[in-house]
């Protein structure tokens, strides 16, 4: 067990920090500190391309596909320095963290050639088409259909909660390719270009006033036959494999964002005197402890060499961070008092802390609700009897 980084790693850290800080002080200074996913989309696509041009886009990938074959420690360091430098989040995070690894794992050589370099280069922005109005927690209930016709897949149906679909180039969708099938059987995993007449995107306004996610409608939408990942009927297996990638190194970068939020609360508490309230002091200390434990939980998860099964740290990670952040939002409002309830903008738009309070209500829902997480933990982690589910 070792927490410290080697001398080489620390040199690498310096290299990352120097480059990132240089960018944020120079050509890309206009997007430094942008936190909302929807802020300055065009500049952030350019930022993706800048990262790629300097091979910082997907450092954990093989060199062949634009990566650096970076070690785990190096990936941890890059994620930390990235957030520390105030660099905005990756608009293509679904491409580099979900679509890319999925293609690397399940794609053919041709598919790797076709997609990976462009994902790494920030030219292909991906979004995820999993949930449907009647397939939320019960993802296997998807009804969107696909059929092969004249060498093309033809897709009909509707997806929902497709984050960033309005700025994306491609979408991966779980579709039902076997007529009359139910549950996880008969599903297939397709990659589809978004810019086509058969795909319509409508924004959904969220409780914070923003519209990061969408409804996506497919009406005879098309993609080539070789856009299928894996075999026909492998959709469920691939979707589940993809979800496992969500627990990767990017979680550490996400935590650095949380660090900034907590620091902002601490600064507000010091400024308005809330920091003298013993109850607030306890809650800030708890938040600090929770954030640190998240980091060490993630390091445990990433240090695990046997990836065939999720250990306790990996199984509990999602509910841990989501619940922590939701509490952080509540703490922010208690620290701010009524100041947190008025916005300086004329539009219904919020600065970081009130936005955190509102947005964090989504954290305990998307990517598996807290209720579903508890089922997973109880069943996979503790071996308790399973809930009713689709029988194949």
């Amino acid at each position, binding site marked *: *067990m*070792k*927490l*410290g*980084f080697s001398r080489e*790693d620390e040199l690498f850290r310096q290299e990352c920090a120097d480059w990132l800080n240089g960018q944020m002080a120079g050509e890309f200074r206009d997007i430094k500190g942008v936190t909302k996913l929807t802020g300055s989309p065009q500049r952030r696509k350019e930022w993706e391309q800048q990262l790629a041009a300097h091979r910082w886009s997907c450092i954990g990938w093989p060199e062949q596909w634009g990566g650096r074959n970076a070690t*785990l*420690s190096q990936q*941890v360091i890059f994620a930390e320095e990235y957030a520390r430098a105030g660099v905005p989040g990756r608009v293509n995070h679904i491409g580099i963290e979900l679509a890319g690894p999925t293609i690397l794992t399940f794609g053919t050589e041709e598919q790797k050639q076709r997609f990976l370099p462009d994902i790494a280069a920030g030219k292909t922005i991906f979004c995820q088409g999993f949930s449907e109005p009647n397939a939320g927690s019960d993802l296997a209930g998807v009804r969107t259909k696909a059929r092969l016709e004249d060498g093309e897949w033809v897709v009909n149906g509707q997806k929902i909660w497709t984050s960033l679909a309005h700025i994306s180039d491609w979408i991966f969708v779980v579709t039902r390719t076997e007529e009359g099938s139910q549950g996880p059987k008969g599903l297939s995993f397709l990659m589809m270009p978004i810019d086509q007449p058969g795909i319509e995107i409508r924004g959904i306004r969220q409780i914070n006033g923003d519209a990061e996610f969408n409804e996506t409608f497919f009406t005879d939408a098309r993609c080539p036959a070789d856009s299928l990942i894996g075999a026909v009927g492998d959709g469920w297996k691939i979707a589940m494999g993809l979800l496992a990638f969500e627990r990767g190194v990017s979680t550490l970068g996400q935590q650095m964002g949380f660090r900034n939020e907590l620091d902002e609360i*601490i600064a507000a*508490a*010091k400024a308005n005197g809330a*920091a*003298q309230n*013993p109850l607030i*002091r*306890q809650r*800030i*200390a*708890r938040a*600090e*402890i*929770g954030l*640190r*434990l998240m980091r*060490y*939980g993630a*390091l*445990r998860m*990433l*240090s*695990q*060499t046997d990836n065939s099964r999720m250990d*306790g*740290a990996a*199984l*509990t990670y999602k*509910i*841990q961070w989501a619940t922590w952040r939701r509490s952080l939002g509540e703490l922010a409002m208690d620290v701010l008092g009524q100041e947190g309830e008025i916005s300086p903008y004329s539009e219904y738009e919020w600065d970081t802390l009130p936005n955190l309070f509102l947005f964090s209500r989504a954290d305990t829902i998307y990517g598996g609700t807290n*209720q579903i*997480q*508890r*089922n997973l*933990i*109880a*069943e996979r*982690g*503790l*071996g*308790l*009897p399973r*809930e009713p589910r689709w029988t194949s």
Partner: protein
Amino acid sequence: MEFAFSDEQQMIAETAQAFFTQNATSTRTRAAMAGDGIDRDLWRYFCQDLGFAGIAIGEDLGGAGLGLVELAIIAEAAGAQVAALPMLGSLLQVAPAIAAGGSDAQQAEWLPALLSGETIAAYVEVSDLRVEGQLLTGTSRFVTHGAAADLLLVTNGEGAWLVRADTPGVTVTTQTSLDQTRPFARVELDQVAAEALADPAGGLACAYRTALVGIAAEALGGAQSCLDRTVDYSKERIQFGRPIGSFQAYKHRLADMMIEIEQARSAVYWAACALDEEAPDAPLALHAAKSFATDTYFRCAGDMIQLHGGIGFTWEHDAHLFFKRARSLQTMLGNGDWHRERIASMILGEAA
């Protein structure tokens, strides 16, 4: 960076777990509870045959020369069985204090006997201790395993003195204590001749961090045991024609225990590792580990009783051993609020 056990650490963990599971049985622990809270055979075997007593003490002093990570591994395994051993006073407080702050002569006189288990030591904290030359006067009512101690380390937080328990002027009275596996004694000192520890600051600091890591690790082991035993029960107990562990209200409560325990595990090994590596965040880690792990233990022990129903409230069932140990660890060496306030002070400055 690799935040996982090495092969050697994994081996120590397996050995320690097997040892405590096989030997620190409920029957033996209950026999110890009826006496002075020590299973002597277990203690002798632990110290002499396993050689775990001096795990974090330097090899030149007769220890194994390993670190707090390895010590935490042992304490976790002991905590999982609520083992009735004088480990806290002897090995987590007094031995580290002497190893870090004792003169050569003090080390030579006491460490071999402490590590072999022949001498049992207790830590006596007296805030209003009266010191007249080398004569000490004062009382503490919360000395763990004090009634069994041969050696007392007396401190007022600044100075530290070694006192043989049979020195004239020392009166030790057993207290009926909530946690019978670690009973308190009242220790009165009336102008007792004492020998000052050579470097009290160094000794006390080492005792403090070792004890906090040990307590946090013990709490982690105990909490995990509460969960494991409740999970086992939930699979066997049938009501309404199905195992009670199949009910979501029950499952989710067990899941919540696991979520807390996994964080406690991160806390304990972060603290142990950060202290071993002298990382700058080690003080924060120590407060985090102590408060988080012991609060987790108490919550899990309380849930264990609730989720066992009536049987969990009986003397016969072991749930109360965990519950009482958990409660005692929460208060020991500063409760959760106190440790969190230390963290708050690091972040926000001292409260006005």
